[in-house]
């Protein structure tokens, strides 16, 4: 039988040693007050140089990004007409694409196999939207909303085209698209009912309204009713729920909604009655 020896002297010696360390000077360097001296040969500093006129010396010619052996330089630049348009990022693993735009020549994107699988969409309306927004990545949300208006939903090919044109990363746009409830990837379905779940509305009975919708629409939050007519979603009323839980059908708010008329709304939507006649 393997008996464990009663923990003897070594444990107490270990503790004594550790306690003696308490009285030794600490090694941490308090960074903002005390700055460690950097050796003259330090190669860790990435500095963009300014010329004597005070403007940036770099003219985004990408020579450094191309020459970097480990391809760790990710650069973006604006051309003379100040459109954010040229971008050079590290190639991802093996077969990923990278936009070829050396020497500020608007090269064709190398065809990218991972996106071949999506159905082609007509990019004309999307190009108008992009031209209207001036290809500025800061306007990404406006572009996405107008694209949803034009196509009814956000096709992945459209997202890729926006990413290519404005230079914002695909994953960035995907992030923006998925973080707003009113933007969705699935092709448009009849109507969308959204119930607010903030604390105010829940106290005012939002939970019962949502339960009623779940039961009448036969689906949970985020799903589509069995006959495919209505999608149930949640939203946030931003504190403006005055007196009754905030319910929104296809974007317009419904005044004074309660659990009972949730049933009528659901039935009406399923029968595809236009919004006007609803209670």
């Amino acid at each position: 039988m393997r008996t464990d020896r009663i923990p003897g002297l070594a444990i107490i010696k270990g503790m004594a040693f550790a306690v003696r360390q308490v009285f030794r000077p600490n090694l941490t360097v308090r960074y903002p007050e005390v700055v460690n001296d950097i050796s003259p040969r330090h190669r860790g500093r990435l500095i963009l140089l300014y010329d004597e006129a005070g403007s940036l010396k770099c003219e985004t010619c990408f020579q450094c990004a191309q020459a970097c052996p480990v391809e760790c330089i990710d650069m973006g630049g604006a051309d003379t007409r100040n459109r954010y348009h040229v971008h050079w990022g590290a190639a991802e693993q093996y077969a990923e694409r990278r936009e070829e735009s050396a020497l500020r020549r608007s090269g064709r994107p190398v065809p990218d196999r991972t996106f071949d699988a999506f159905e082609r969409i007509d990019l004309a309306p999307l190009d108008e939207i992009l031209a209207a927004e001036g290809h500025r990545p800061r306007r990404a949300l406006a572009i996405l909303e107008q694209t949803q208006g034009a196509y009814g939903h956000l096709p992945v090919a459209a997202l890729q085209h926006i990413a290519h044109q404005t230079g914002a990363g695909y994953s960035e746009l995907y992030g923006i698209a998925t973080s707003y409830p009113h933007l969705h990837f699935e092709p448009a379905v009849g109507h969308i009912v959204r119930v607010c779940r903030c604390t105010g509305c829940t106290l005012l009975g939002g939970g019962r309204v949502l339960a009623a919708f779940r039961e009448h629409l036969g689906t949970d939050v985020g799903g589509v009713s069995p006959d495919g007519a209505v999608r149930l979603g949640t939203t946030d009323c931003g504190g403006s729920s005055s007196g009754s839980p905030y319910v929104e059908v296809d974007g317009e708010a419904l005044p004074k909604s309660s659990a009972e008329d949730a049933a009528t709304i659901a039935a009406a939507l399923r029968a595809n009655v236009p919004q006007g006649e609803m209670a």
Partner: protein
Amino acid sequence: MRRTTDRRSLQHLDERLGDHLVVPAEAMGDTIELVIAPASVPAVMRALREDGDLRYELLADICGVDTGLTMQVVYHLWSPLSPDWVRVIADGLSRDDPRVPSITFLWPGAEWGEREAYDMFGIEFEGNRDLRRIYMPPDYLAFPLRKDFALADDASRGPGEGIRHMETPLPPGEVRANPVIRTSAGAGAVLGPDGELLALGAGSIALPEAPDAAEERA
């Protein structure tokens, strides 16, 4: 570079494995190189490992190589008796269906090495209990380290081809038809339309073809 000092193990290897060798054993600097046909891999490796005065019991490395013409599997062994490596090259695997017997029955540790060679080159190791992809996702179709797997990203085309010539833009939807395939047949080798070798270029390292590979090609 250290010259191979002990001639003794060179002769010993020659007469011990003579029949399997395609080319007589050759001392390249600090390594003794044996080129064998894929079929005789188990016999040669067992001999190298179990022979009393060879005792190459440590498997230093196992890897696949795609020379553009044939596939190779290269084993490096070390024995406590002599400081030199022994490099066993199983050459002449066809590029469409590369097959070689596995050596996991001698070294269980070769399992992952063979899985990596399969994952990167598509070399089938018969007898390996667990031959599946080790690095790439399970549903990945291509074999990345093969020479015909050109990186779609043009920036990765090496500076080797001299000054980087301007890319003529392709019309949209076009894919570069015949990406430059570098083979061990040396720069300037003449390749047929689907990559089969017509003439060796200068400075080729293409190994003399294994006997059976030659008839199979003829």
